[in-house]
């Protein structure tokens, strides 16, 4: 896929920055974090601005953005620490909706998503992770029944699952173990939902199915097509979350750099202390690596081989989460007492970085061996 032209991209970036500045002023956001949090507050605005349309093909009413464009957009949005499920819905679930078996149904579903009418999120389908909470039944399993399917099992800590209108539930078929994807309206799903709050204010939930009957017409994708759509969605999730983390790091480096240059102790700016200078340099270096890794993953998703995409996902997981932890925690430390206040945005970026690290980890397979790096000429 080819990236959008630079003019379109700069318009998108400007629009997103304006959105963040207008709606995600730090004090306003802090006010909003008082429960109950309205996670849909800006959803219609995001739809109107075309943010939700970004990753979809033009035939589906989208802007035709590729993975690189999405990553660039998410990186801009990162500044705001948004509390709407943009990535979960438009990027991740959207990618499965766009890949539906029935082209008309796909187009209709994507149109609803782009219009902001419906929030859809993916439930289950984590690579390499067993589902199920301690004592619970385990992975999501779909068993064939007379009228359709019986769904059983638990998906853990699913982002925005309690706020969605619709789920794309990824399960194993009990007979073949192959994947299957159902599109279920949450309200009538019959699932048990336990919502909880994450450290950065975002929402997640455990979704538990106890032999819930699912009608045959809820089937969205099955077998290889389901498997491929789920994996593609996971890869896109990792890419978008990495871009988000890189955007947060960029903010922290700017804020912390400014602080080092302005905070005076012992009659000099604290940035004049070599003990902090070298660590700030380290923070910047790991940020650059993370940014490069995030870019290279996005580019790979736009044209690389699947095996290469998987490896880049794992590399991004490793580098971006480590960099995020370092940049987040060092930024707090270098702000001294101010760094640990709720009022200053610094600790909120750290909490977002930690949450993102969890999400990235949840979407990447660890069962991987490095490819022979010397032969992957395209990426050298």
């Amino acid at each position, binding site marked *: 896929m080819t990236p959008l032209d630079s003019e379109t991209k700069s318009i998108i970036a400007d629009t997103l920055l304006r959105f963040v500045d207008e709606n995600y002023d730090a004090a306003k956001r802090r006010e909003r974090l008082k*429960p109950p949090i309205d996670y849909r507050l800006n959803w219609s605005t995001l739809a109107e601005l075309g943010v939700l349309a970004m990753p979809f093909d033009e035939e589906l009413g989208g802007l035709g953005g590729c993975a690189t464009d999405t990553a660039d957009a998410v990186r801009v949005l990162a500044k705001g620490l948004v509390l709407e499920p943009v990535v979960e819905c438009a990027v991740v679930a959207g990618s499965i909706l766009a890949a539906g078996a029935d082209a008309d149904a796909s187009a209709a579903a994507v149109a609803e998503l782009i219009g902001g009418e419906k929030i859809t999120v993916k439930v289950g389908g984590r690579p*390499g*992770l*067993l589902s*199920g*909470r*301690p*004592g619970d039944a385990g992975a999501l399993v779909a068993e064939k029944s007379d009228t359709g399917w019986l769904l059983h099992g638990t998906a*853990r*800590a699913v982002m925005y699952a309690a706020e969605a209108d619709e789920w794309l539930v990824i399960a194993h078929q009990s007979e073949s173990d192959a994947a299957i994807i159902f599109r279920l309206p949450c309200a009538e799903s019959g699932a048990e939902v*336990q919502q*909880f*709050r*994450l*450290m*950065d204010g975002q929402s*997640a939930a*455990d979704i538990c199915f106890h032999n819930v009957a699912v009608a045959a017409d809820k089937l969205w994708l099955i077998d290889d097509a389901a498997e491929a759509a789920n994996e593609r969605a996971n890869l896109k999730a990792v890419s978008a979350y990495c871009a988000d983390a890189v955007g947060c790091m960029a903010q922290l480096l700017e804020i912390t750099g400014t602080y080092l240059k302005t905070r*005076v*102790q*012992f*009659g000099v700016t604290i940035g004049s*202390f070599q*003990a*902090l200078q070298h660590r700030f340099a380290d923070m910047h270096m790991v940020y650059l690596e993370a940014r490069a890794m995030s870019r290279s993953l996005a580019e790979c998703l736009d044209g690389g081989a699947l095996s290469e995409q998987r490896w880049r996902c794992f590399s991004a997981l490793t580098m971006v989460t480590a960099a995020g*932890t370092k940049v987040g*925690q060092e930024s*707090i*430390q270098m702000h*001294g*007492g101010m*760094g*640990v*206040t*709720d*009022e200053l945005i610094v*600790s909120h970026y*750290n*909490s977002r970085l*930690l*949450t993102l*690290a*969890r*999400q990235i980890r*949840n979407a990447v397979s*660890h*069962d991987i061996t490095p490819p022979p790096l010397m032969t992957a000429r395209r990426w050298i």
Partner: protein
Amino acid sequence: MSSANPGIDFDEEAFRAEVRAFVASDLDPETRKKVENAIYLEKHDFVNWQQALARKGWFGAWWPKEHGGQDWSLAQEHAFLQECALNAAPMLIPYGVNMVGPVIYTFGNEEQKKKYIPGILDNTTWWCQGYSEPNAGSDLAGLTTSAVLDGDHYVVNGTKMWTTEAHWADMMHCLVRTDKSGKKQQGITFLLIDMKTPGLTVEPIVTLDGVHHTNQTFFDNVRVPIENVVGQPGDGWKIAKFLLSRERGFIADTGNKLRMIGQIERAAMRYLHHMPPIEQIKLRARYNELSAWLTALVALERDNIHELLAGRDDGISASVLKVRGTELLQAMTEFWRDAMGPYGACYDAENRQSGLGLSSTEPWIQAAGVNYNYLYGRCWSIFGGSNEVQRNIIAGTLLR
């Protein structure tokens, strides 16, 4: 055993057993449950525990006999603190018993001793510490809150930052500037201020864990009687240095860490088998390494006590323990988050107000306790002299 350990003048095993038994019988079970489960502690949890210790004669037992203590050695104090923490007693609030108390019995006059020592030892007075200011953190001597003599009162103006638990306090021990003319370390005075004095206001600061522990305190023509100066005007810096050196004595806080590593192990074991094999291997290896680090920290803390009891003081041991102890704490809490698997990012301060906390069967509630420890854990490398300042002390001493 006492002969093998220089300066250890008590039967450590028997004493530890006695402390354990006392914690088991006299710590309010509600408080213990809160500590064990990382539930928010209220003022009365601390006060009740410290009063129970006072009744037993153990609160401030490490003070000299003449001031109401029992002359415990460092080794005995250490065994006591470690055993209390291991058995889920709340930390001792230091501002009275370990800070202003020793200052008053060392530098104060007879009236001050009579007036303040009883309230410290029986826990009827809650003290807070007003040293840091918005522009005087690491550079404490840069403080500017002023106290100007007016008849038999000092008139205090300015602001103190990070006055922890000032909202619970009856009294503050405060560093104020009484003279601007000399070097900045000169002209600082140690002043005791009644929190109810007109013109003194306390504004909450909420920290990253969503909790109100600390405050900013404002002084608007606060009149403090001249007899509330400890030592002489201008002695403040000397007194602060005396006090801060004591603050870091048992900073490694190994009792709590030993208890925490057990909690971490239980959490890790609970979630481990839900993780892919390679994650399991990595987590197990990290757990072992953290346990080894903790083993070394405990040994280091003991080593230091022995050195100090033998009369050897390298001048940096408190700084070393502070840096290594707080960094281990942070590594432990980071590991703990990771061991929670998909629930590692859950945090809702509400879930720490009451309830089962860490022993909840609901992982997102358990995670509130874990992430509280992680989030508040970030403070440890900042307060009490940041880890950077400690490293400056260490390197400065070694390279002098």
